[in-house]
């Protein structure tokens, strides 16, 4: 079986032919979740409902009437998506115990197609962060920390001075979803991407992370960070699977006025063999300060790969890239300040015991409910939105955003089909090292290669490329034209085939892999 065999070609067939049942799949995943609990990838495991969904799926397969490729497929959802009847916490004290009465549109779509919802995955609180380390349920551990590959290369360094195991972070903020997919506990997971929150952890965890074009997939039910940049993200083990998920989720939603009206037609990815008509752009500004020499070399190697295969590879310039951090900071914090205003303890969520007055109740509730990161962004955002500051900061940032977006327009108009860039500055850092700097600093550093795509609303994807010297995954990013996901994913699939990224060697996975997993050597389940 090849790397790009996945849900469509393998699992679906296996289920239809009865070689494996939805219940078996579900049970296996649930068991694996239990034995990988130390990863802390899941906040809530919905064991009962998942098994029930699996049973119902099984009935449908028995009748020969599966709902589609996703019928019976175990999936996980980041805990900032509303799931009816299952706790939605956003990894925050503010929403601990909050049971939403409705499903996010994307969740509903998955369920309508028979997917089995295993649970809600861990994240940075309210999706603010690039490490998945700042949620109230603790940090997520990168499964690769426990892989043979990492142990081989990093054993001497993998224990800190006091003997504590120095596991590495997943990246963030969708770290739980990335870890879940990476450790085989589900076949696909939903994340969110505002400044790179799906692509960053995808790169660190060695999985495919797709950020779709803004407006393609509904945000109804996704608890917002930055409404004008958020998108639901897709995490899978191969590009083909991402296309399957995209096909099931994309399309106009009347409940989300920012989704496009045009009809969306799900597509199958062609097996590209000839890239001679392809023009790949290499944006020079993405050779950012702090980019590891390893990744630089890998990026170069990838560019050569395209060149040698006959594609046109050109250096391009996105001159306003260096302003994107500051621009993002202003716009993000401003929207955060606004979006978080609803958390007052009155209608839902945590409510403080402070009863002196409404104002004091609000203040205490918000102080108790939000962590420092969230509160810091609210304060910054409110500052930028003050009447005397609005023009200087918010409006200015909007203008800079326009310039950043125009950079891409110009480049794509010049004949370039797709951009190739690194996704992260380096491989995953050990947790103890990562937390030496605060969330704000880390986010600013880590978002540099990913957030411009959010500013411009463009589709982008992380494809796992190779292992670093430390034995950890490194990915590369492709950025495509607006709504040209088909082209983006086709190229990504071709690249995936060329690089043949290795499967994670995890003992826990091997233990549970009796039968179904065993036959396959591919990174995707089949």
């Amino acid at each position, binding site marked *: 079986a090849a790397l790009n065999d996945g849900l469509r070609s393998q699992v679906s067939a296996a289920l239809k032919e009865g070689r494996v049942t939805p219940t078996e799949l579900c049970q296996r995943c649930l068991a694996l979740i239990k034995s990988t609990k130390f990863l802390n990838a899941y906040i809530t495991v919905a064991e009962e409902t998942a098994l029930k969904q699996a049973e119902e799926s099984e009935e449908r397969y028995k009748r020969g009437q599966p709902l589609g490729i996703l019928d019976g497929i175990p999936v996980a959802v980041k805990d900032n998506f*509303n799931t009816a009847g299952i706790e939605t916490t956003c990894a925050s004290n503010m929403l601990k115990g909050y049971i939403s009465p409705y499903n996010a549109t994307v969740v509903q779509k998955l369920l309508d197609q028979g997917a089995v919802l295993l649970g809600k995955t861990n994240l940075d609180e309210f999706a603010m962060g690039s490490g998945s380390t700042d949620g109230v349920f603790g940090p997520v551990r990168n499964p690769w920390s426990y892989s043979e590959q990492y142990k081989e290369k990093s054993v001497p360094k993998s224990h800190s001075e006091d003997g504590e195991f120095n596991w590495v972070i997943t990246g963030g903020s969708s770290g739980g979803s990335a870890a879940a997919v990476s450790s085989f506990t589900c076949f696909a997971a939903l994340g969110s991407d505002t400044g790179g929150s799906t692509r960053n952890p995808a790169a660190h965890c060695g999985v495919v992370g797709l950020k779709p074009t803004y407006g393609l997939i509904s945000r109804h039910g996704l608890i917002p960070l930055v409404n004008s940049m958020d998108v639901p993200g897709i995490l899978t083990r191969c590009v083909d699977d991402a296309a399957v998920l995209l096909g099931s989720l994309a399309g106009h939603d*009347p409940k989300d*006025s920012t989704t496009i009206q045009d009809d969306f037609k799900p597509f199958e990815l062609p097996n590209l063999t000839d890239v001679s008509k392809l023009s790949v752009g290499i944006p020079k500004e993405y050779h950012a300060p702090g980019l590891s020499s390893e990744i630089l070399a890998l990026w170069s190697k990838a560019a050569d790969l395209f060149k040698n295969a006959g594609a046109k590879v050109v250096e391009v310039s996105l001159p306003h890239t260096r302003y994107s951090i500051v621009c993002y900071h202003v716009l993000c914090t401003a929207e955060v*300040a606004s979006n978080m205003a609803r958390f007052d303890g009155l209608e839902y969520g945590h409510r403080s015991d402070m009863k002196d007055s409404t104002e004091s109740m609000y203040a205490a509730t918000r102080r108790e409910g939000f962590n420092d990161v969230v509160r810091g962004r609210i304060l910054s955002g409110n500052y930028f939105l003050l*009447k005397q500051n*609005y023009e200087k900061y918010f409006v200015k940032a909007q203008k800079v955003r326009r310039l950043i977006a125009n950079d891409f327009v110009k480049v794509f108009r010049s004949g370039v089909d797709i951009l190739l860039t690194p996704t992260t500055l380096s491989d995953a850092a050990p947790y103890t090292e990562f937390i030496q700097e605060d969330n704000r600093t880390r986010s600013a550093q880590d978002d540099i290669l990913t957030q411009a795509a959010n500013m411009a609303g463009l589709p982008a994807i992380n494809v796992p490329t190779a292992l670093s010297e430390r034995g950890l995954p490194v990915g590369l990013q492709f950025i495509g034209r607006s709504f040209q996901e088909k082209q983006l994913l086709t190229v990504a699939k071709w690249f995936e085939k060329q690089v043949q990224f290795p499967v994670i060697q995890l003992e826990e996975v091997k233990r549970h892999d009796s039968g179904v997993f065993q036959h396959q050597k591919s990174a995707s389940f089949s």
Partner: protein
Amino acid sequence: LALWVPVVGLEIHAQISSNSKLFSGSQVQFAAPPNSLVSFFDASLPGTLPVLNRRCVEAAVMTGLALNCSINKKSLFDRKHYFYADLPAGYQITQQRVPIAVNGSLSYSLCVDNKMSQMVTKTVRIKQIQLEQDSGKSLHDDTRSQTLVDLNRAGVGLMEVVMEPDMCCGEEAAAAVRELQLILQTLGSSQAVMAEGQLRVDANVSVHHPGEPYGVRTEVKNINSIRFLAKAIDYEIQRQIEELENGGTILNETRAFDSKLGCTVPMRDKEGKQDYRFMPEPNLPPLILYDAKSLPANMNHQQVINIDWIHERLPDLPSVKRKKLVERYGILPEHSFTLLNEDGLAEFFESVVKRTQMKPKKVIGWILNDLLSYLKQHSLTVKESPVSSFLLADLLNLLEKKEISSTAAKQVLAELWKGEGKTPLEIVKEQKLELLQDQKELEQICQAVIDAQENQ
């Protein structure tokens, strides 16, 4: 004595008459059980998004056109932030940067010196009309030290109509608001009943000496009727004049009208000026409206609003209706005002005119003097009148045919008010109110009366 020029502007919030709210599908209904009309979006549940209600946009376009505004083909939505228990999201969605309609005007009439016969027409400029959400209601229960929040009203669509400070006193403001109310009710864009909170008026009042710049203004809130509007404004003007003449200053503050005391009082301190931190509403694209010229050829007309289409279907506005009444029936202009001022009265009048040979100029007297005063006495609306237009027409026909005298007619009318189901003819017969036409019979009666006198 120094001459003072009072300046009055108004901010009017009219609740849009629609089945559902401005951005969500929950129902709009007055006096429903608390928190029974609240959607997930209204309650600000995280992850919910606004979806614009077409009917509300149409209502605003109609109102804008009726007020001679330019309709902005592109308008924008913004968030206005403040914390309050009746504002679940912590912000209101409104139109601060580019509202849906601007630069209109409203003409209204006033009686000069309280004489109905002398009416003068005035105009007030309409600065803009914007769409925005209404807030919920909070009730303070001081005995239990708690606040009860009802979100039924949260998210209901409002049109904020801003009238420039072109008015000079309570009377003008009251007349302007009354005319606006009639226009809104004619359009159906708002039921505009102040008592039910469907029309709320805040007044901006200041005074200055002629030739000098405008004075500091105060905002007067908590006005529950048109009558109180006039009172509150006139009180505030007086208060400001007295304050300034005594060497004091006017604070740029918000004051509440106390209807019991008939005065304005400073409202509870809001800790200085609020900074609403306006920000574009990122979940709503710009609102694009079309007209016949700009309408794209293959556009699904369910998806768009055509301003010209709405314009063509506007009903006759009150000013037009009044003119038609005067022209058609030869009544006086001030009569037409009274007819339109009472809900259903103009229709009643026309119904009577249709059914009687009596000239409209005479009918109007019976409508305005007799019918209307009786209704007022008993606090009844025209709809509740025990005397229908049919009955009144029958009565007036008897009078017109000289079968009864006008005194007798008034007597019959008094009887009809009892609403016992008798026709005018029956009452006339019962009370023997017929006019005698027979000459001979009349002579006999007269002779009998004379004879009786002589015998005394």
